[in-house]
């Protein structure tokens, strides 16, 4: 079977993971964990491939992949928005922020918006309870939020992405690479 959703290198890594798991009892969760480490998410054709290789029903593989929060079925967006639902943030209205973002972005927890811009996630405590309620966008922490403030922050990310896209038509190749490096750091 061809794995169309990944690179040849990723496909080779997946085969190696499955070979190593062959014969071990109950390997599904560890295999999915390792495979997600390779691809970044669990595409449908990869799940199909894993089910065949481990002689497991497809329905069981899909069931496990959707039961655990850690596994994702679509690629992460450009920005990962994580709303804290730890005790302090929850008491201060973290759940309301999450509800609003779900509604406005039109995605469920753990999923990515259709434009590929945001992945919406939740977490239990960033250790920033003094700033509750808190959310992070990628590595950046935003505190003392309200649903409206949270939305405004995402709007900034959205418009800065649009600027980037518009601007990138003029910037040189080197400038783009430099910008990318800065983002990684």
């Amino acid at each position, binding site marked *: 079977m061809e794995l169309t959703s990944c690179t040849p290198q990723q496909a080779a890594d997946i085969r190696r993971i499955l070979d190593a798991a062959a014969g071990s009892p109950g390997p599904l969760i560890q295999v999915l964990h390792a495979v997600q480490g390779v691809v970044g998410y669990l595409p*449908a054709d990869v*799940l*199909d491939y894993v*089910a065949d290789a481990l002689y497991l*029903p*497809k*329905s*069981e*593989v*899909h*069931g496990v992949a*959707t*039961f655990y929060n850690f596994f994702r079925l679509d690629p992460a967006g450009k920005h990962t928005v994580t709303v804290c639902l730890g005790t302090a943030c929850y008491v201060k209205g973290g759940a309301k922020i999450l509800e609003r973002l779900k509604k406005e972005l039109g995605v*469920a927890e753990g999923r990515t918006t259709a434009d590929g811009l945001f992945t919406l996630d939740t977490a239990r405590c960033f250790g920033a309870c003094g700033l509750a309620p808190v959310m992070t966008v990628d590595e950046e922490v935003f505190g003392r939020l309200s649903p409206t403030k949270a939305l405004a922050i995402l709007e900034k990310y959205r418009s800065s992405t649009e600027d980037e896209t518009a601007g990138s038509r003029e910037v040189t190749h080197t400038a783009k690479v430099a910008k990318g490096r800065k983002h990684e750091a």
Partner: protein
Amino acid sequence: MERITVKIDGREIVTSPGRTILEVAVEHGIRIPTLCHLEGLSDVGACRLCIVDVRGQLVTSCTTRVADKMEVLTGTDAVRAYRRTILELLFAEGNHVCAFCVSNGGCELQDLACELEMHSVTVPYAYPRHRVDATHPRFLIDRDRCVLCGRCVRACGEVEGARTWNFAERGSQARVITDLDVDWGTAASCTSCGKCVEVCPTGAIVRKGESNGEMRKKPEVITRLKERRTHG
């Protein structure tokens, strides 16, 4: 053979260990309501409707084994009230509108509501919008009428051996799926045997072409099949 004595609703019953409270009760004509239980399939304790009182503790009678000197009460006011609440939650979690259902008059959930005297639903309705799948040529699933009893999952896995059905997601998003959550009509592992249809207690998994209130399921086919396989 080892014998033990249990007391169910004040009746002393001599039986053997290893059997479930439900088995012993049924054998002695004591009625305990069930939904996810089906003779011929394994018991999982999913629906919680068969709860009984064992010395103040609520346990599911389909998965709890009898023990010597065990005292079981199957129908105290508290147990009955809990069962009614569980049933109300099942109703509120789906879109169980009997008047518009093919299984009206032939539905185990509806029968239980009558038996347990559930006159109204006192918790807010969730009005889910799960996907209806009519891609199979002969059958159809309306997931908003599913109570997640898992009888289809067990019949498909334990009796047919196809393992086409399973649960996906969790909490309010939990639902039964075929293969990798594909359209049922394209699920390669499905043998179209129809066992999931016959064991489904509600109007969730049904045969196509039957109208309002016409659907009558035959869950006993699984029981008979299991018996024949056991006794050769």
